[in-house]
């Protein structure tokens, strides 16, 4: 675990660095996939950019709304660069909504756009796991297993390593696109189903789960619902007998 690296008078946040590398590689893969699927890469760049910026702004506004009087006394704090005053969960939702609205206004083909984003998102999740490994978040439950790691004053499951391995597995599958020929959006749904299934399985070894009544882990319940939704959509999005759909996309429209 190495969350911060002191460099003279500065502190390098290794977690942030891992996430930045993940975003950078993710965008490169998205660009490559956009060209392959004949979608204008600029539109996808804009989609990602709008999602990220809206997410950041939303995360700050959401945090500030919890102590609005404090922020109104110091309005410049709304634009502070401090990452400690962000609400990441709310930011994620706001970013997704903003990206969706952009895609809708640009009339991007929804399912193909999801396929374009899939490799980038999948590789980002590998680096997301690495960021957890670096800062000790998403830690495992106590165990006496021989491969346990000592973290937060206990021998624990190396849940961050499990997370990285699972994300790598999903990325490899997504990159090979074994089911993509069945229709637009199927590669995205494959990634979604596998990622959610991995969370359902691996949550058992986490030490920071949120428990719901009955002792159920909230992530497992939500994860299982996501797996089911993804499988159901796979069935309805699959196009029997139809070759890969992008071949029939009106190319001139999407490359404008």
């Amino acid at each position, binding site marked *: 675990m190495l969350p911060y690296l002191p460099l003279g008078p500065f502190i390098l946040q290794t977690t942030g660095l891992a996430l930045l590398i993940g975003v950078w590689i993710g965008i490169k893969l998205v660009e490559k996939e956009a060209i392959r699927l004949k979608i204008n890469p600029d539109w996808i760049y804009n989609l990602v950019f709008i999602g990220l910026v809206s997410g950041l702004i939303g995360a700050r506004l959401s945090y500030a709304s*919890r102590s609005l009087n404090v922020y109104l006394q110091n309005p410049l704090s709304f634009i502070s660069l*401090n990452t*400690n005053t962000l609400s990441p969960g709310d930011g994620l939702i706001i970013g997704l909504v903003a990206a969706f609205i952009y895609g809708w206004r640009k009339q991007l083909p929804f399912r193909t756009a999801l396929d374009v984003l899939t490799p980038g998102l999948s590789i980002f999740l590998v680096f997301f796991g690495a960021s957890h490994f670096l800062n000790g978040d998403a830690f495992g*439950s106590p165990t006496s297993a021989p491969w346990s790691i000592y973290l937060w004053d206990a021998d624990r499951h190396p849940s961050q390593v499990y997370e990285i391995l699972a994300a790598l597995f999903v990325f490899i599958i997504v990159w090979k696109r*074994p089911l993509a*020929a069945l229709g637009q959006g199927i590669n995205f749904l494959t990634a979604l189903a596998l990622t959610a299934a991995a969370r359902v399985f691996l949550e*058992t070894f986490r030490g920071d789960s949120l428990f719901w009544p009955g002792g159920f*882990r909230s992530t497992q319940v939500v994860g299982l619902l996501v797996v*089911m939704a993804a499988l159901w959509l*796979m069935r309805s999005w699959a196009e029997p007998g139809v070759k890969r759909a992008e071949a029939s996309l009106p190319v001139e429209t999407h490359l404008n």
Partner: protein
Amino acid sequence: MIRIIQQTLQDSRRWTAVMLAVLLAGSIWSFISRSPVAASTDGASFSSPREGFSAPDFTLDLVGGGQVTLSDLRGKVVLVNLWATWCPPCREEMPAIEAVYKKYKDSGLEVLAVNTTFQDSEGEAAAFAQEFGLSFLIPLDRTGAVSRQYQLRALPTSYFIDRQGIIRSVVVGGPMDDTLIASKVEELLKETP
């Protein structure tokens, strides 16, 4: 394998069977994964310097005499700030901490500005407190035990601790401005004592 999945996907009844099997397997796994609360940080069964855990307890001498024990402050919101006089961001954020302390101390805020005396000077810490007119408690970590206990990696580092003694937020580096400090303190003070 892929071929089988592809064929199954194109057969509505077989795919429904797959979905039901996945649902059953997932439900069984979730059921057997139900865990007692002790397996999580909920209830803070472990004491460790990170969010969600019980704040490691300590007793230290204070600048100006006397002692303070962190666990004696249960029921109050506590900001533990580790600092040194030679650390520029530490110096810069002290007036903001003082301002927030003055504003919220009557509502139940306590500040422990733990000076890392093992790598600083007791005299300079006292002079610094006087120069900046700091009215909160300044414990002295003469041996470095508390810094090790809190796995100090960079100065300053601040821990926002709720009324139950659970660390709710950790800010590494600085300087923190008064908005950041006040927003975190206010959120904890709003919670039921």
